[in-house]
């Protein structure tokens, strides 16, 4: 559906499914729920003077999209309480064991051992590199939590600011570009929580990772697959010695962790003596000396998007799928 503002009268343009048309013809069509979003608005084109946001030019008149994948990415969210002042957000955790770090603002994902070996001469792969198909080594870890002023990361605050407000994401959707990824690795059924002992040591059981399920639920963008994953509880709480700062990227109450790794499309995993998959040339770059060490790489940059099913909070990580292509 789309609103069309025409000289004072508002027209609601809607595209109905076959079932919807049938119900309309029978006089039974009832709209029981709807979502609102403003993905089409570029807010950089407006001003925020006086607390009221004004676009310099009227927004475009939109037709109702008929595409099934035309989901709202930035939609309005209806929470169940009026006193939710703080929402948890997702950040990349780079402090837990096996948590991968961004290298020059992007996460590198090696497609094969040859590539991993080559990159190991460039940076510390134990910190900065993901390896496709690997369930025990580095993984990208999303952490949810709240950092706000002096709000502490206590257990009580976790329960009241997150759990009690139904903002704990036990499940998350992960959206991957199906052209580049065959599957996703995430938590197993035995994974429960990450906690911190009295000495400040990490206690976790989320690895090894297992393959997540790809489902037919609609992803927010074309060519993306939807996976759903189960998070692990973030039971890291502030202690008197502030040990938590070594494990968590949040100062305030914490929600969950979501560790992920990826299985890259097998055609993209060919070694340098093989043929480079066409995806590298079509969607990325080939034979690039990106580290200045004389080695050449093919790579594709893509995004991984996660979305909490309870909080509706989302986060995007930039991933560079990289393959050693020769010297």
């Amino acid at each position, binding site marked *: 559906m789309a609103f069309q503002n025409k000289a004072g009268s508002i027209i609601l343009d809607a595209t109905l499914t076959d*079932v919807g048309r049938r119900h309309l013809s029978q006089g039974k069509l009832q709209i*029981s*729920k709807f979502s609102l979003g403003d993905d089409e608005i570029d807010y950089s084109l407006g001003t925020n003077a006086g607390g009221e946001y004004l676009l310099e030019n009227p927004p475009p008149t939109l037709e109702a999209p008929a595409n099934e994948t035309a989901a709202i990415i930035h939609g309005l969210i*209806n*929470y*169940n*309480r*009026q*006193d*939710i*002042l703080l929402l948890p957000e997702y950040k990349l955790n780079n402090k837990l064991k096996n948590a991968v770090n961004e290298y020059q603002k992007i996460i590198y994902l090696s497609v094969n051992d040859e590539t991993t070996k080559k990159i190991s001469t460039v940076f510390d792969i134990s910190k900065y590199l993901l390896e496709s198909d690997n369930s025990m080594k580095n993984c990208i870890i999303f952490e949810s939590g709240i950092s706000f*002023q*002096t*709000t502490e990361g206590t257990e*009580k*605050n976790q*329960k*009241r*600011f997150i*759990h*009690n*407000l*139904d903002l*704990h*994401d*036990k*499940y998350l959707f992960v959206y991957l570009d199906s052209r580049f990824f065959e599957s996703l690795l995430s938590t197993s059924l035995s994974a429960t929580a990450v906690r911190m002992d009295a000495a400040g040591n990490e206690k976790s059981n989320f690895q090894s990772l297992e393959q997540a*399920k*790809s*489902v*037919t*639920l609609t992803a927010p963008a074309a060519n993306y*697959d939807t996976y*759903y994953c189960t998070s692990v509880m973030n039971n890291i709480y502030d202690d008197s010695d502030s040990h938590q700062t070594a494990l968590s990227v949040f100062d305030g109450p914490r929600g969950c962790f979501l560790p992920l790794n990826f299985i890259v499309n097998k055609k993209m995993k060919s070694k340098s003596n093989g043929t480079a998959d066409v995806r590298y040339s079509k969607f990325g770059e080939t034979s690039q000396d990106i580290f200045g060490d004389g080695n050449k790489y093919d790579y594709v940059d893509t995004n991984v998007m996660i979305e909490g*099913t*309870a909080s509706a909070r989302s986060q995007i990580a930039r991933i560079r799928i990289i393959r050693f292509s020769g010297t």
Partner: protein
Amino acid sequence: MTINIELYDSNLITGSSDLLRQSLGGYYEVVNSTFDTTGLDRTLLYIEPVTDSMMPDLSLAIHPTYVLDTAHNAMLNFSATGTALAITSSETSIFPYYTIPVAIAGVGPSVVPDEVDELSELADVLTSDEKWKKYILGGTYNTVFYPGIYSQGVFNVNNFSFDLPYDLLSAKAVDPENYPSYQTVERKSVYSMHLPSYQKFNAENKEGDLLNIYDLLYCSVLDQNSTFTAVKDQITLGGIYNHDTTSVFDPEELEVPALIKTLSEIPPADPATATWKYTDAYQAIRKYYYDYEENTKPSGTQQQDLFFNADAIQDVFHNAYINAESHGAYYPFYNKIGLPAFGSGPLNELIVETEFDNLLLNSIKDAFITGDYETSENSFTYAATDLDLDENGELYDRKTVTNKILKYVDFKNVLARVNNQPIPLSTSPSRFVGGNQYINRAATDYTGRLSQLNKQKSFALLDRIQKVHLSIDPIAPPADVSAETYMPWSTVADFSISKFMDLANSELNQKAECVAFRINKRNATTGEEFNFIIQNQPYNTYGRYLPEDINPEEWCYYDTQVKYGETYIYTTYAYFMVVGYQYEYADMVLSRRISEYGQYAASDLTFSGTEGDYTCIEFYDPSTGLATPSPMKTRSSPHFLEPLRINLLDEVESEGYATSAQELAKDTNINWADFNLKIEPTIKIFEIPVDSSPLTVLDNPPPTPDVQPYQVKSQSQTVGFYVKLQNPPVKEDSNRNDMYPTPTNELERINYARYLASQNMLSTDKLTLGTVSRPSVLEVYRLSHKPMSMSDFDSNLVGTKSLIISENNDEDNRTYISPTCFYEERITSGHKFYYAFRFLNENNMPSPWTPVVEVELIDDGGYKYTNFNTIIESELGIGSQYEDPSTQFKKIFMLKPALPQIFLSSENLNYDETSVEQFDNVQLAGDLSDSLWNKKYKIRLTSKKTGKKIDLNVSYKLTEDNSTD
């Protein structure tokens, strides 16, 4: 708008045993209502008494304007009354009573008695003393039966009326659009907090050990030290709480959002050093409830009957309302029983001012609960006027008349008993709510140590009644009270028998006031009963009040001593104190002729100023036949009946020739029936059941699950459902658009009925309240055939998913849930499955059903995909909807009989003949043992992709065409 109720004593209705009233008028007939279109409604028509006269005036003789019972009054002429005698009190009554002589004259003989013939004997003509006697007392005279017009006995008149508010649910049912404008009384169940251990405590203990919110309010809002010791111990939890210093109803400021609802957020003055503050209204009270169940040692005793006198009502009723509904839901769960506001007047004022209220409430218990006071029953005709729908669905004034027997206690006996023996009668467990002042303790002190207080209060009341309300000469009465208020017959100067009879039509509610209510609570499972006796003194009233001044929301009882899921039947009784009267006819004498008819001319008498002829008559007691002077006292001044009747003693020249029972009767007025009418005021307390409602505390249904079906992208043949809470799970959700979930089995149907009854909901009403406990479980139901109704899913639960993250419920925590979950199943391909989902909350209350999801996994040559279709509940059972009854498709195969089947046999042909002649000798497939001709075949095609089937029915018919064209 209210329901108007009028109650009439049954002896004021047609056919009663008061024969004189039937003769003179002043009674009611049950007739068809003029508003009625159904012919079933009834109302009462008042038959006014015919006019009579103090002094005889033949022009005022009875000429009935109204259709009276001619069998009763055909031979009546007129009546007259003598001087009333008023006695203020006597050995037999503490109230004044009146004795008024009455004389009834028969229609004078139109036939001279000595010339009676057979015809006049059968006609309504007084032909003899015997006929007069039969006519008066009843009996058969000369084959004609006379019902009589005089009956001995005591008759009561306690007519009164009141306006009863509509029951909320009834008003909704009758007038769905305008019912808010009706005066209604609400009875409902409320579930506000889910405190599992407190709820468990209530479930496991007797109602008497459960927290009574009025006790907590008294201790918290007023003074915990001024209440009864046992109550203080219970409410302070043995001294753990000091309610005088800290109120559990006060909000608390926390650094975290409130568990249920934050009242306000307060930003920090310096964000660098302080955090936001959140105001939680329920933090303290929640802790108290948890502490209550932890620290209360159940006594196992039965719940006491509770009294709420005027002081207690002023102290706690308003606060109870404030903390239940106005400021918020501070009680975990309760039943609310609204009370009608009937108003109150001088009688309630009298009770309050003389501080008789405690004794009144206790007496009501002793009379109507324990039976320590003797109660009687009074038969009333109950006339009600309310709004109803006629056969066309239009509102109309419905009038109904029924008989009702009400129990009552004679308040005179109560007063006498309390005065003479001021120790309470019953020792059944009961107590007053509120302070433990002497006056509260005295009313229920069975030791007698405080009996003097009871005597003082009862004497004060009796004294006021005797000197003011039931006094011939009231001392300093209220402005609206006079001797006539409660004794309208007391103005003897104007008294007449017709006016007395006409009192039946006086203002009904003038002498009746509701003085108290009793809410009887019965546990439907155990049968145990409890009583709350409440004085009719709503908050902010003192003695008198008008119904319109009362906030109906506030005039109610909040019963927190209940168990979750238990049905209690609340019956509300109103106690009306009715100042009525009783009367009797006594000392009846009849006249008989003792001289020739008209034997004495007026000129022969010493009595002057009259004309005509006189007949000598004698009055006698009809039961003995002995001569007896008339109660009219005709010989005494002022000689009321002269010149119609002259006492013979006044005419004889010397004593001994006549008796005072002998009189001279003028002209045709020779038939008399004289008696005394005795009238005495009464004060009775009637018990009127005004409502009975079953109430069950139940949580509200959780939101409908929002289900998105999907298929797992693999060869696993797994379908799944992404389920989330559709609406915010908050308690008050006025935007809910769903109905109560369709029940699927008997237990659910019972709960459905209980929920609707307890929420004043019609079956067509939408839910207005959200779940209080958390939705905790998703139930998944599956059928392998298309359901005809949601009931088909009963017993087809295939899986559950818990939403619970943790459930350590205490004052700081509740059950935390994940508002989303996933459910997956492997299914076979080529078959349709039907799924339905619902949430259960922590109280196992189901949510509305989701639409049915039809799932079919299709294996398209190894490529598997799933079709999902949604069927809303209203579409179930409609039948198959053939959207495309026919469709075109390409020729994909051809049926061709085998060659032998179409081979023509020429074996029997004679080629010498013409073809026409040999036509019948041609045979098709004649040699085959199994010919296909004239047979039917079914060919079934089954899609390997979808599993769908199509049947082709083929008939091979052999037709002959031997035309030569």
